[in-house]
């Protein structure tokens, strides 16, 4: 019989906690200011134009949403796949997933050029649109994770937690598929146009989500000085290492297939070699900072919280670079109307489109991150989600 685990909310004086919230309020306030600025003057004040139509806010939004999908993996491992060692941190996993999704969704909804029509967006749904279906998918995911979260917390509902987890797992898969198809089904853009983007998004979600989750876990435990068992850290570290390895493989497969197939060779060449900032971000950011360096840190046999945290931070940075290459790089490469011809026009056909993000977009994107962080901090303070100690041995697990 396992020793009973005592769960406790974030402790410390009010002053200490509100100090933290004051720090988190800074990106939130700046993000809100940036939003109102863009909403008032219109998107003309951003770096977006008729060539790069989705800018930095979408980069942050896609990153947050993909991370949200994957942050649930630890909870799924515990409740669907029976890995009891993760059970104490399953509620935190669900919380991080929901918070990241809310942050990403907020960015997407608030970046509309006609934000005053948000109600229209929520009430008129074109059923053939993957984009519209994602409204259903996001809300379904949020609802199913929320119900699972509640079942974990409510002792009387604990025995239904597994059923709720299976439903949430199903939504998780649907949402990852929808996000991948949203880009993958766009035949207009040579950089997308591939069903491979669905499995790529799935492995990316595991990577980003696990990295963010581990960062939150380490931060929360450090706040209170809660110990974490080396075994748990080792398992999480290995989970992240496998995800990073899988992402590197997925990315390699995707870019190689673009480069290899004649139809998309030009865009593969552009992204991998001739793309200027996109090529740098791909190799330096995605591969080196987001892949090789974290793997080197994670593959070490000795466990160090600092090394793990550093690896997670590198994965996040590399992930942002990767999403930038996908979202912006995919738009920088123009639509090819006449294959085999050199095109030029007053509407910038046939040219690589430049993009300089504006400060407002950066602040807005960071505001979304701040929103997710604030939600996590507030809920961890209000509810007893995290065990007092994570170094108690449980009954042996496979």
């Amino acid at each position, binding site marked *: 019989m396992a020793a009973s685990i005592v769960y406790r909310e974030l402790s410390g004086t009010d002053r200490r906690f509100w100090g933290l919230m004051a720090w988190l309020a800074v990106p939130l306030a700046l993000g809100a200011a940036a939003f109102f600025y863009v909403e008032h003057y*219109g*998107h*003309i004040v951003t770096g977006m*134009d*008729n*060539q790069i*139509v*989705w800018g930095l806010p979408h980069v942050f939004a896609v990153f947050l949403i993909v991370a949200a999908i994957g942050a649930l993996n630890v909870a799924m491992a515990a409740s669907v796949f029976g890995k009891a060692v993760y059970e104490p941190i399953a509620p935190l996993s669900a919380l991080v997933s929901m918070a990241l999704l809310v942050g990403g969704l907020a960015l997407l909804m608030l970046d*509309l*050029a*006609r*934000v005053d*029509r*948000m109600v*229209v*967006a929520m009430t*008129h*749904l*074109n059923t*053939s*649109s*993957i*984009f*519209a279906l994602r*409204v259903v998918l996001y809300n379904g995911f949020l609802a199913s994770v929320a119900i699972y979260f509640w079942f974990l917390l409510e002792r009387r509902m604990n025995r239904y937690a597994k059923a709720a987890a299976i439903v949430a797992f199903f939504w998780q898969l649907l949402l990852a598929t929808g996000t991948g198809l949203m880009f993958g089904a*766009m*035949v*207009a*853009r040579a950089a997308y146009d591939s069903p491979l983007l669905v499995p790529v998004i799935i492995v990316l979600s595991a990577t980003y989500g696990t990295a963010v989750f581990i960062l939150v876990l380490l931060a929360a435990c450090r706040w209170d000085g809660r110990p974490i068992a080396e075994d748990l850290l080792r398992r999480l570290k290995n989970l992240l290492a496998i995800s990073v390895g899988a992402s590197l493989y997925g990315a390699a497969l995707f870019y190689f297939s673009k480069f290899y197939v004649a139809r998309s060779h030009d865009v593969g060449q552009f992204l991998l070699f001739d793309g200027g900032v996109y090529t740098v971000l791909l190799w330096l950011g995605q591969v080196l900072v987001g892949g090789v360096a974290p793997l080197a840190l994670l593959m070490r046999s000795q466990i160090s919280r600092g090394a793990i945290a550093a690896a997670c931070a590198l994965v996040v940075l590399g992930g942002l670079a990767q999403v930038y290459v996908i979202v912006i790089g995919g*738009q920088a490469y*123009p*639509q090819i*109307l*006449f294959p*085999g*011809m*050199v*095109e*030029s*026009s*007053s*509407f*910038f*056909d*046939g040219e690589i489109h430049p993009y300089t993000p504006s400060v407002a977009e950066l602040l807005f994107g960071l505001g979304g991150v701040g929103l997710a962080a604030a939600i996590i901090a507030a809920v961890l303070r209000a509810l007893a989600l995290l065990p007092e100690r994570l170094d108690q041995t449980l009954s042996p697990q496979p």
Partner: protein
Amino acid sequence: MSTNEGSGLSRRGFLAISSATLGGVMLAPGVRLIEVASARAPEQAASKQVRWGLLIETDKCATGCDDCVKACATENGIKDTGRPRTDAQWIRKVELKDRRSGRTHSVPVMCQHCEHPPCVDVCPTGASFKRADGIVLVDRHTCIGCRYCMMACPYKARSIVFDDVTDQNPDVPRGKGCAEGCTLCVHRIDRDRQPACVEACTKAGHNAMIFGDLNNPQSEIAQRVAKFGTSKIRADLKLNPAVRYQGL
């Protein structure tokens, strides 16, 4: 069966008259619809029997000529603010050069009014839609400015309005924040006129653009499409656009 000649309708006569009436009733819509293609009353809805299209004869299209572009801008109230990266463009001349042969072309490109438009598929609110007669439009009442249609269009046909718009043409409402693209001058077509670009090209004597009903075998455009080889831009995507090009 005894027939009463002269005192009323015989059975055969009744059948003859009723079948003639029935045939007439069945034919009448067909007759009516051919009339619709050429003169639709305001209270009639657009018909799916019609498919409006354009035929561009590129060998008549000169490099440096942009009469169609200027006419479109004038008709639709599209102003040049001097910031081309954010200004809307509904039609543009694309200068092409074949990489291998060096042959050059000048081609006007606008919304291709596809039969299977990707922009309609992806629009989250259904603002981007295809009218019954094939014209692909943006319902600006429902557009939320998400720009997904711009991501999904293979022809870069759509723009989003970045600047405040004033003094619109009353027939062409357009405003900041909504996506827009070539409407095939739907406000003119519904009143039996030609799109502004076609009219300007014809008036200037170039005669490179023909507008008409692709579904009507009697129309000039349908006859030319049937007789000469015409191509579609990115035909490999199988979107079946309504804008056809000759000489590419």
